[in-house]
């Protein structure tokens, strides 16, 4: 056993996977830079039509669909499902090696449930955040619980953890939901070995701290600023990058006058101490629920002829912001959706132009809708084409803000909304290829329903994703041409990955329809109400004799 352990540790050390992945898919975003790109090219544009399923795995719990990113290390798949089930699965055969079912309380009672978006694996441990707002560490060989810490009482905070942890420098970092509740957000780091709290970064400064002047009276106490997705890490700069969500109440801003730092911002934190190094706020004083919570993609690309260390982040309002990740300096901004009316544009300095704010007591048409010009499901960057791949959605909403007093841990939305089609066209969705700095669009793939699964890019010239009707498909990275498709039987809301065992490449996708946005969709497409839920993994490979 000791030899096996040593080997496991060595193989981890040998594959830092900062950007692209190969045999393993070690981190939530593939590499630490969240590219979701693999250098594997056994499956490629020339042979993808021969791809066949080689195994499937059922989690047995369909509630909320399957929104996870599997982690794969040394041929073993680590998967989390709704209600905090964790499975270790043989990546070649689909055989279960162990499982761990976390005991949640019977009543969760908060809307941010019951899904889970992934585990983190580091050394000998597997880490997961839970529906009742705890973090657990498991023995990677057996699934045995090693430690568990409750971050904050769910009944008090109305918050929990659905995002995957990020592990760096021996620390497990987790975000928190609660952005639509009367809650003050944070990122917390725990010692990976003992579970002891190492540091906490509050996303809303307390009175007296720098930035607190951007909050009215007591509004900082319940101002939202959740951190519900997973951050990225740059080992050279030793900085953790994390997107911070919207301020609360979402649609009612009169009781929190000011810019409301650090909501709707990307924050750069020292990985050892949690100290804020810089921040970039995309939407000062947000009154539309435009989270800046999605992935931070770390790119080294030329800007005006000079290579710069960049960070790309798409927000829920449908705008992509590119900033310098050493300083937080604004570089560029460009949209991923056609129907955007909450601003008329972004100035060359990064300022929002022509803000269209919903007024108290009135109903205002806002595009996109609350589900986002893009949802949280992640884009991908291919170093082969140099392009960033993202989905974009065309849908709007009628928003009616209303005055609301916060009650700790309770919903704190400050208004209601109803989905509407865009004013001049049909609702729909697309997957596009962009130049990451200029936002120039290279091609577009049109879809009937919002594409709500993450994108996987491979050196085989393919991008993979799935649709709400259950088709898992591959597009040509250079043209957007659909090359292959397979019906998995339930819609796609998770994140596909790829890995290799003994020279054979596997493409692995979660399949399982569910979630808040899936439910909301029925306001525009009534037929989606009866789309089948599910929760399974499908592994694909080329037939053994194809290589």
């Amino acid at each position, binding site marked *: 056993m000791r030899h096996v352990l040593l080997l496991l540790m060595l193989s981890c050390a040998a594959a830092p996977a900062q950007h692209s992945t190969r045999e393993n898919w070690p981190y939530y975003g593939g590499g630490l830079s969240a590219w979701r790109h693999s250098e594997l090219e056994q499956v490629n544009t020339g042979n993808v039509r021969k791809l066949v399923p080689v195994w499937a795995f059922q989690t047995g719990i369909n509630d909320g669909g399957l929104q996870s990113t599997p982690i794969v290390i040394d041929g073993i798949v680590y998967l989390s499902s709704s209600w905090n089930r964790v499975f270790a699965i043989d990546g070649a055969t689909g055989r279960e090696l162990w499982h761990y079912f976390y005991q949640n309380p019977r009543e969760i009672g908060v809307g941010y449930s019951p899904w889970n978006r992934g585990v983190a694996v580091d050394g000998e441990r597997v880490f997961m955040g839970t529906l009742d707002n705890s973090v657990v560490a498991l023995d990677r060989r057996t699934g045995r619980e090693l430690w568990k810490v409750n971050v904050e009482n769910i009944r008090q905070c109305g918050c929990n953890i659905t995002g995957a942890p990020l592990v760096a420098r021996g620390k497990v970092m987790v975000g928190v939901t609660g952005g639509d509740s009367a809650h003050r957000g944070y990122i917390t780091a725990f010692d990976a070995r003992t579970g002891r709290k190492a540091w906490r970064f509050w996303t809303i400064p307390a009175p007296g701290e720098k930035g607190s002047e951007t909050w009215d009276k007591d509004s900082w106490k319940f101002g939202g600023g959740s951190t519900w997705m997973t951050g990225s890490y740059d080992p050279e700069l030793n900085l953790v990058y994390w997107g911070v969500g919207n301020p609360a109440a979402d649609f009612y801003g009169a009781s929190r006058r000011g810019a409301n730092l650090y909501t709707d911002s990307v924050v750069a934190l020292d990985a050892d101490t949690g100290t804020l190094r810089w921040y970039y706020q995309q939407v000062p004083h947000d009154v539309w629920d435009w989270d800046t919570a999605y992935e931070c993609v770390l790119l080294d690309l030329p800007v005006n002829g000079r290579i710069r260390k960049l960070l790309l982040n798409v927000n829920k309002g449908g705008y992509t912001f590119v900033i310098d990740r050493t300083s937080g300096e604004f570089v560029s901004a460009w949209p991923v959706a056609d129907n955007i009316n909450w601003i008329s544009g972004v100035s060359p300095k990064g300022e929002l132009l022509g803000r269209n704010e919903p007024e*108290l007591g009135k109903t205002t048409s806002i595009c996109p809708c609350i589900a986002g010009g893009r949802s949280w499901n992640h884009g991908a960057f291919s170093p082969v084409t140099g392009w960033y791949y993202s989905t974009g959605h065309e849908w709007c909403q009628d928003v009616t803000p209303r005055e609301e007093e916060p009650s700790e841990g309770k919903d704190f939305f400050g208004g209601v909304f109803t989905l509407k089609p865009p004013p001049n066209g049909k609702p729909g969705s697309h997957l596009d290829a962009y130049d990451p700095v200029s936002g120039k669009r290279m091609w577009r793939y049109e879809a009937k329903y919002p594409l709500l699964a993450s994108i996987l890019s491979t050196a085989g010239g393919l991008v993979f994703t799935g649709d709400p009707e259950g088709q898992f498909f591959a597009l040509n990275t250079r043209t957007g041409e659909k090359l292959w498709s397979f019906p998995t039987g339930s819609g796609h809301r998770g994140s596909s990955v790829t890995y290799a065992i003994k020279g054979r490449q596997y493409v692995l996708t979660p399949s399982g329809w569910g979630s808040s946005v899936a439910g909301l969709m029925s306001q525009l497409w009534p037929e989606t109400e009866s789309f089948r839920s599910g929760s399974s993994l499908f592994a694909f490979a080329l037939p053994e004799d194809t290589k």
Partner: protein
Amino acid sequence: VIGALVWLAQAAVVDPSVIARGDQIFAQSCSVGYCHGVAGAASRGPRLRGRSFDRAYLFKVVRDGIANSAMPAWKDRLSEADIAAVVAYVASLGAAGEAPPTAPAPAAVATQEKLPAAPAQAERGRQLFFNASDDFRCSACHSVGAAGTAIAGDLDQFGAEPVRRIAAAMRAGTPTRIVSARLKDGDTFPALRVDESGDFVKLYDLSVPPPVLRTIERNDIQSLSGGGSWSHRKLAERYKPQQLADIIAYIRWTASGEKSEVRPSDLQ
């Protein structure tokens, strides 16, 4: 009374003012966020408009919530009459079919709280007990009145105790359940004993809050011994005497309904 209210909600013809009341509560509590959508148009929660439900079932679901789901119990936040009004309103949506939502949301929301307000001192104590911005808050280890985290015991039993007894307990040194744990790898920490019956020992590591429930192989433990440096008194000393008095007033009010003021001099 409950039977009568269900009957009221079941009645074929419901007073329009009851439905209007239900509409208002629904807009405040049920259509918010990602729940049931405006006028039950569907979101994370299921669509409610254009469907028919058994009203007794609806009443039970609204009152008690649905276990293993995001649907909360409203019995602590809404009166039975208000729950019946919500049921009447949801039932009225069944006839609305796919018609567009009608009533705009009210411009202002009054917080629905049926619990009596705490006396001012108890409220100050409550805010200290549960202060989310304070890592060392009482509620990180204790529950009272079914709120908080009960890893080191529920405090309801203290509710009827004399003020001086409660104060003395807060200022006590090291309870016997807390030991000093030393592992073979050299790690040493104050620990709250949980379970030592099997091959694995469960302990709360109290080094830094929040407490960590660690499951450690018996063979990896060097020793579990009394004494050590952990002291509850250090936690009590973080507060001024007036604040301690406020916290005690809160515990007494929550656990036993006691409303009398607690003065700092009562603590001696």
